[in-house]
C-alpha cells in the first residue's frame, strides 16, 4: 500500500498543507487530524497543495467536505492547488470545482487570500 503524508507549514496569513501519496479510506484519518488541529488553532485560511498527491478516493474527498463548512463559517477557506490532471479529474467528476477554488499554484491561492483579507 502506498504511503500518505501531510506536511504542514504556515505562510503569511494562511497555512499550507502539502499532501503526498495515496489518500484513501485508510489514510484519510491522517488528513482529518491535521485539519482538526488547524481548526483548533483557529487557522482557517488553508491552502492544500496537491503537487505530490498521486491518488484520492471518495473517502479522501470526504475529508474536505467534513471541514469546509466550519472553515467558511469562520470566514476562512480551503483552496486547492497544484493538482495533477488525474487528481483534478476525480475532483472534477464530483463537481468540486463548483464548491472549491482550485488554483494552478500556491502563489495564486495566496494572492487570493490576501485580497479577501483586505476586503474583509
Amino acid at each position: 500500500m502506498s504511503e500518505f503524508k501531510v506536511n504542514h507549514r504556515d505562510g503569511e496569513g494562511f497555512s499550507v498543507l502539502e499532501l503526498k501519496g495515496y489518500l484513501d479510506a485508510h489514510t484519510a484519518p491522517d488528513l482529518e487530524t491535521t485539519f482538526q488541529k488547524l481548526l483548533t488553532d483557529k487557522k482557517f485560511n488553508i491552502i492544500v497543495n496537491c503537487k505530490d498527491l498521486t491518488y484520492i478516493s471518495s473517502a479522501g474527498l470526504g475529508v474536505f467536505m467534513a471541514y469546509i463548512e466550519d472553515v467558511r463559517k469562520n470566514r476562512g477557506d480551503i483552496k486547492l492547488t497544484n493538482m495533477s490532471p488525474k487528481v483534478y479529474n476525480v475532483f472534477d467528476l464530483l463537481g468540486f470545482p463548483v464548491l472549491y477554488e482550485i488554483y494552478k499554484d500556491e502563489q495564486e491561492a495566496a494572492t487570493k487570500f490576501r485580497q479577501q483579507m483586505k476586503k474583509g
Partner: protein
Amino acid sequence: MSRIKKAATLIVSGVLLLLVFMYDVVRLTVELGDTGFLFLRELAVVAVMVGAFLLMRDYARKGIGAAIKETGRLLIVMVASLVVAAGTGMLAGIGFSEGGASSMPQNSVTAFFSLVVSLVVGTASIQTILTIKELVYHKRKRGTRRNFLTYVVLLLATAGFSLPVFSNDLAILGTTTFVLAVIMIVVNSFRQNWIVFLSRREKIYCIIYSALLFGTFLALSLVLSNRTFLQKAVLFFSVPLERFVLLNSMYGAVYFGMAFITTLFHLPTAEAYERKQSELSSLHNLGRLVTQVFDFNDLVRTVTHMTREVSGARSAWLELIRQEPAGMRVEVVSANNIDESVIRTVMEGTEFSPRQFVMESKKALMIDDVGADRRTRHLKGRGLSIGSLLSVPLVSHGSLVGILHATKEISYGFDQDDSDVLTTLADHVTIAIENARLIEQSLERERLKQELMVARDVQKRLLPDRFPENPAMDVSAHSEPSLEVGGDYFDFVHLDEQTVGIVVGDVSGKGVSAAFYMAEVKGIFQSLSKMTRSPRELLIWANETLRENLERKAFISAVYAVFELATGRVVLARAGHCPMVLISRRSNRLIRPNGLGLGLTDGELFEQSTEETVLTLAEGDVCLFYTDGITEARNGEGREFGYDRLVELATEAKDLPAMEIQNRILSEIGAYCGSSGPEDDLTLVVVKWLGKRPKDSKVHQGDHHE
C-alpha cells in the same frame, strides 16, 4: 503375609511358648543340669521372637508418609509395655529368690508373669527397631542402609553370644559387639532427615513425642541395667532377649533424644520451610492458569485463591483495567474472602488510594502497618481487619492491565519475599488473562463475521435480480463489494411500458457505513422515480433528501438514465458519477453532463450545476454504466485500469450480447488486478440497444449474483 501364614505363625508361637512355660515350671522344682533341653528352650524363644518380628513387620509397612503417626504409635506401645512391666512387678506373691548367678522365680506364677512381661517388652523392642528403621531410611543416602544393618548384625551378635549354651569365654566377644553396637547407635542417631519434612504442627507433636520416648527408653534402659523385677524376669526368660531389649532401649533413648534436639532446632524455621513448600507447589500450579483460559471466571477465581496460598494472605482480590472510549475503567473481577464494600472503602480514600498509586507508578505497593502509615491512617478503627496490604501491578507490553491485591490482618504481615513471589505470580496471571482475552476476541470476531455474512445476503437482496427484457434492449448487470458489504447500488425502474430507468450509484467510503447509505439511496430512488420522469429533477430531489441525512464527509455519486424504448431517446443526468461510456458505430464517447455529487451542497448550487443530456441510440450501440471500482482498479504496480482500456475493451466486444460484453470486461479487470483482487466495490451495467420496437416490456430472470 497371607492370613493363613499369620494364623500358623501365631499358633506355632503359642505352642512353643506353652512348652517353654512347662519346661520352666519343671525347672523350678527339679534341678535340671541338662543343657540340651536348655538349648532347645532358647531356640524356641528365638523362634517365637522371629515369629513376632514377621507379624509386626507386616503391620509396620505403611510408608513414611505418616512418620509422626508411627512415632506416636511407638510411644503408646512403649508406655503401655512399661506400665505392664511395672504393674506386674507390683503384683502380690511374685518374687525372685536371690542366690547364685541368676535369680530364680519363687513360684510358677512368677515364672508365668516373667514370660508375659518378657514377651511384652520383647515385642515392644521389635516395634522400636522397626519404627526407627523407617525413620532412619527416610531420604536415605548411600551409607544409611549399611550403617543400620551393621547395627542390626551387632545387635543380633550381642544377643547370640549371650546364649547360656556358650561358655563364658565368649563373654568378651559379647562385650565387644555390645560396645560396637552402642557406637553404631550413636552413628545411626544422626539420621534425622524425616524431621525436616514435618509440618510445623507435626514438629510440635514431634517434640512432645520424642521427649516422652526419650524418657521412656531411658527408664527402660535403667530398669534393665539394675536388679529390678523386670531385669530378673527377662533374664530368667531369655538372656539374649535381655541384651536385645537393652540395646534397643538404648538406641531408642539416644535416637529420640537426638530427634528432640533436632526438632527443637528446626522449629523456628518450620514456618518458613512450610511457606517455601507451598510457594513452590503454587508456582508449579501456575500451569493450571494456562489451561483455564477458556473460562474467564474460573481463571480469576484461581488467581485470587493462589494469591492467598502463596502469600499466606487473609484476603485477596484482582482488579482489571479496561480501556474504554470514556477512559480507563477498573473492575474487581474476583475477590477472595473480602467484601466489595471493604474494597471500596480501601480504594476510594480521599487522599490516597493503593489503586491510584499502582496505576500511576506501575510498581508494587507494600503498606506494612495500615493503621499507622500516614497514607492509610484514615482506615484505622473501621473494622476492616486489614493490618498490612500488598498490591502488585499486572503489566503487559508496558501497559497496566490490572492490579492484584492481598491483605493480612496483622501489621508487617508481608515481606520482600511475598512481594517477589506475588510479582512472579502477577506475570503469569498477566499472560493467562491476555490469552483469555485473545480467545474472547477471536470468538467475538467470528461472531461479527457471521453477522457480516448475514448483512451481505441482505444487501444482495436489495439489488435487482430481474433485468429489463424487451425487444429494444439487452441488459446485463453485476455488482461485487470489496468487503462483505459495500456502497455500490444499481437498479432498474419501469416507468411505464415504453420507458425504463437505469440508475447506478456509489456511496463514498466502503464497508458497513456505506452499506447503510446504499440501502437508503435505494429507498429514495424507488420512491422518487414514481414522482418524476426527469433524471435531473430526480437527482435534485434526491440531493435535498440526502443532504439532511448524510454525515458531513459522506456523499453519493449517481447517474440516472431514462430510456424511451420506442424511439431510442435517452435522457441522462449525472450527480458527480463516472461518465457513461457510449460505444456507437461511428464513435466512442464519454457522456458527461455537468453535475455535483449528492449530499455535497445545498439545493440551489446543486440545481445550477446539474444538467441533463439527451441522446438517441442506434441499433448496436452499447452503453456502460459503472462505478469507479472499474476504472480505478489497480494492478500490482499501482497503475489504474483507466477509461481508455475500458472503452477499448467494450469496442472490441460491442457485437457480443450484453452479458458477454460484461463478462469480458470483468474477467479482464480480474486478470489486471492479479491475486490481490479489486480494492473497491465494483459495479457494471451493460445496455445493448437492439432497436426493435417493443409490443410491451417485461423483465426476465437475471443471474448477476456472484
